[in-house]
């Protein structure tokens, strides 16, 4: 029964969020709470020669200053520091571990005081002397040192030869800058000391169990000694996948001082953690005059740290999108003296598909073909790397619906041919693609005889709407009004869930809830059937459903028993079921989400100011659990795409290896006035192969393709092809 699934249900945590009642990690109170302030390194590489904390310790109200020379023990094996998202290869960063400086902005001391302002003041009194070493932070000057780490897909055919002989060829470098997530909430942890060596850690994370296991292994604690809770997360976008520095530091201080400690990083300090790595994407396309492809090659060269190899799939996406008999992909890394990059919304795809889709636009121009038409001529019904069909792929429909809603047929193809008064108008489009992933997740449902159910799971809601979709699925499966469902999430003591990322949580948590609800249905059916003179006598259990607070025969709903009666006769006050859902492995089909993005820009010719006035995003992502929160997710991703295209870039001064715009005034993210009309279309995509509910996930797909659509629109408006992002007005005026 679907009273809620697929509807625009308002967020069940909405009231808490609009009244200020929702508590985030840095807002939990504790008796005698202390406050930590981080001191960071100001060199990019070397060692700490001398660290003098004596002046800081003299400040009234300072309790202690923790450093690598003065701290409780920390694990000394790399394995202990590898959380579930850590790169396979490398040695994870360990805060306050030793005297080595690995990147500028690295935490080197934690001042702990009675209040935050005192800790901040005393931090300015910590004196550090360094032995500096030669360092490098510039990818472009170190490009020659790039080492191949990955062949994302096996080469097919002979791409090099096919490119040489192609009738039409396009080849170019696209440069995607480093970006920082900048969630609005500062990275924060409140570690509450329980008096017996145990800690309750309120942390800003996308995975409470990941953090809990990590802290236990780093600090040599037993699982029942550390509990991690994160009921509300003020945005994360990948930044909360790996345990952040402050959770280690807060825990370290709490254990050292046997007190509760809060550590909140400043906005500036947040730039010392993960980021989307600067990547040079070299794409080459070879085509026949009829607009079909002969060859695709895509090579990515990305930044990583010296100590961990972080890489994502930037280059394989043409395998999914465009038919070509020859292809070759490679991913190279340049190791630099920076912190390790991390996942950031649609990692790999946001950047790699941006390059591919700009290149396709350039090819369309060379072929004098409409960009949508080119994509249709190259359309692939199979994932070519494995030769697999899709569980579902309504991308053609995305192109059609998106183009129609946008009015694409009215586009005049020549650049600079459309105007609105003083402004040049440009229309561009691009394709988006992401994976439809799913992971094992467990959920517990406790149903009480008053018809109220509590659903619990360790999964996070980072603003994605997990609370709400879990309640929707439970309400439908249990046949209860959504007001009767309460949801507990993001507590490491709750049933198993991985980090919330990769767009897998909607499908994964929904099916865990379905699984637990199914066991409750069976038990209720048994009780109901066993009642004296039961209206369900003789009805098979599979033919019994839960509906409107009752246990009923599916085909004849007048034959029913209320849940309360069934439970009374079963002599139970509550039914508790926990179910771990694992998806059967199915290697016979590829699973992806797709989108077609259309963008309009208006460019002031004299000033070079670019405005994105309209975006239409037509998305095929299976069944949409909640059309209201789902639309918001895509809309928010489109805003991210606007940022990628026009605003966002982390700028480093390579003379010092230091980030120059580590704040949110000089690191530009889109503001309200940068965003105009965004039209989100969910294309119908029934998919009964992928999973029972046909869900694919929405967290990443919305950003993919957006920056390319905007870049292509800028070209159409101005005739200028900017291949180095973001497209700022200085590049346009050059």
């Amino acid at each position, binding site marked *: 029964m679907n009273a809620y699934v697929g509807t625009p249900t*308002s967020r069940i*945590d*909405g*009231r*808490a*969020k*609009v*009244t*200020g*009642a*929702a*508590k*985030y990690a*840095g*807002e939990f*109170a504790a008796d005698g709470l202390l406050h930590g302030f981080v001191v960071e390194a100001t060199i990019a590489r070397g060692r700490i020669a001398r660290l003098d904390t004596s*002046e800081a310790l*003299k*400040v009234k*109200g300072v309790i202690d200053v923790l450093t690598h020379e003065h701290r409780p023990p920390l694990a000394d094996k790399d394995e202990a520091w590898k959380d579930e998202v850590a790169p396979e290869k490398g040695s994870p960063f360990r805060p306050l571990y030793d005297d080595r400086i690995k990147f500028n902005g690295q935490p080197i001391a934690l001042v702990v005081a009675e209040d*935050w*302002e*005192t800790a901040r*003041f005393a931090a300015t*009194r910590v004196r550090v002397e360094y032995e500096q070493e030669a360092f490098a932070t510039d990818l472009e000057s170190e490009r020659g040192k790039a080492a191949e780490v990955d062949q994302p897909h096996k080469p097919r055919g002979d791409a090099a030869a096919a490119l040489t002989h192609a009738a039409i060829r396009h080849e170019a470098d696209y440069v995607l800058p480093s970006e920082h997530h900048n*969630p*609005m*909430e*500062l990275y924060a942890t409140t570690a509450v000391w329980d008096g017996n060596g145990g800690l309750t850690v309120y942390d800003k994370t996308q995975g409470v169990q990941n953090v809990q296991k990590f802290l236990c292994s780093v600090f040599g604690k037993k699982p029942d000694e550390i509990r991690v809770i994160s009921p*509300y*997360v003020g*945005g*994360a*976008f990948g930044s909360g996948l790996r345990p952040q520095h402050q959770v280690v530091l807060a825990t370290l201080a709490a254990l050292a001082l046997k007190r509760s400690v809060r550590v*909140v990083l400043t*906005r500036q300090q947040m730039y010392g953690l993960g980021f989307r790595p600067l990547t040079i994407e070299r794409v080459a396309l070879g085509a026949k005059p009829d607009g079909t492809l002969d060859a695709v090659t895509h090579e990515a060269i990305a930044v990583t740290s010296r100590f961990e190899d972080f890489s994502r799939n930037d280059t394989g996406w043409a395998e999914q999108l465009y038919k070509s008999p020859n292809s070759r992909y490679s991913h190279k890394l340049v190791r630099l003296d920076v912190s390790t990059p991390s996942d950031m919304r649609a990692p790999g795809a946001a950047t790699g598909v941006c390059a591919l889709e700009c290149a396709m636009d350039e090819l369309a121009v060379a072929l004098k073909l409409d960009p949508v038409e080119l994509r249709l001529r190259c359309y692939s019904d199979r994932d070519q790397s494995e030769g697999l069909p899709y569980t579902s792929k309504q991308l053609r429909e995305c192109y059609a619906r998106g183009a129609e809603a946008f009015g694409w047929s009215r586009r005049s193809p020549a650049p600079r041919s459309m105007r609105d008064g003083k402004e040049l108008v440009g229309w561009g489009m691009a394709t988006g693609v992401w994976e439809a992933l799913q992971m094992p997740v467990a959920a517990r449902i406790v149903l009480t005889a008053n018809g109220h159910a509590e659903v619990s799971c360790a999964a996070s809601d980072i*603003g*994605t*709407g997990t609370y709400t979709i879990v309640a929707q699925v439970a309400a439908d499966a249990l046949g209860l009004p959504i007001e009767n469902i309460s949801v507990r999430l993001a507590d490491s003591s709750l049933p198993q869930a991985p980090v919330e990322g990769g767009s897998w949580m909607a499908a994964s948590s929904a099916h865990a809830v379905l699984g637990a609800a199914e066991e409750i249905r069976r038990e209720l059916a048994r009780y109901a059937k066993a009642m004296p003179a039961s209206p369900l006598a003789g009805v098979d259990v599979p033919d019994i459903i839960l509906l409107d607070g009752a246990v009923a025969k599916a085909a004849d709903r007048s034959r029913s028993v209320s849940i309360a009666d069934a439970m009374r006769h079963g002599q139970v006050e509550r039914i508790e079921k926990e179910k771990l859902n694992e998806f059967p492995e199915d290697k016979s089909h590829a699973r992806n989400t797709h989108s077609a993005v259309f963008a309009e820009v208006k460019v002031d010719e004299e000033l070079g100011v670019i405005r994105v006035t309209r975006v239409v995003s037509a998305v095929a992502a299976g069944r949409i659990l909640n059309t*209201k*929160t789902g*639309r*918001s997710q895509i*809309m*928010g*991703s489109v*805003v*991210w795409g606007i940022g990628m295209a026009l605003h966002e870039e982390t700028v480093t001064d390579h003379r010092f290896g230091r980030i120059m715009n580590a*704040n*949110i*005034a000089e690191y530009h*993210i*889109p*503001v*309200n*006035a*940068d965003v*105009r*009309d*965004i039209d989100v279309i969910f294309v119908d995509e029934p998919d009964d192969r992928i999973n029972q509910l046909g869900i694919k996930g929405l967290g990443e797909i919305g950003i993919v393709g957006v920056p390319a659509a905007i870049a292509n629109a800028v070209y159409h408006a101005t005739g200028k092809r900017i291949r180095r992002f973001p497209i700022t007005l200085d590049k346009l005026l050059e």
Partner: protein
Amino acid sequence: MADMTIPERIPINLVVNGERRALEVVPWTTLLDALRDRLELTGTKKGCDHGQCGACTVLIDGRRVNSCLTLAVMKDGAEITTIEGLAGDGALHPLQQAFIDHDAFQCGYCTPGQICSAAGLVAEGRARDADEIRELMSGNLCRCGAYPNIVAAIEQAMSRS
């Protein structure tokens, strides 16, 4: 280093959400930290501490202000409204309801600031259409990118007020 002591605390009175609150603060304590750390009113958020994001927006004597750029001692005697005090007991302010109706947030972290800022904007009477709302709400960043829904929510609340 001459003096390692912290400056003296100064007694002040704030009228927060209609309630008189006496507290002693050192001069460098911002109104934001006083609200969050001292009065345990954590509905007001800290997103940058530098006046760059608007998450800390509260109403001071009816005007929207970044509380991270306001020292608490400067506001002795002022009337301060935070998200916790925007509506009467248990009820929702029309803007709060409109934000829920239009799904004008995801993570919710910028939301108290957005709503307080919108309340200040409505009181200013300056915003007459969506374009002006966009412009005059641009001091309140939303990394979740809920902007179009925020504009729609404010339009709803304005049309009903």
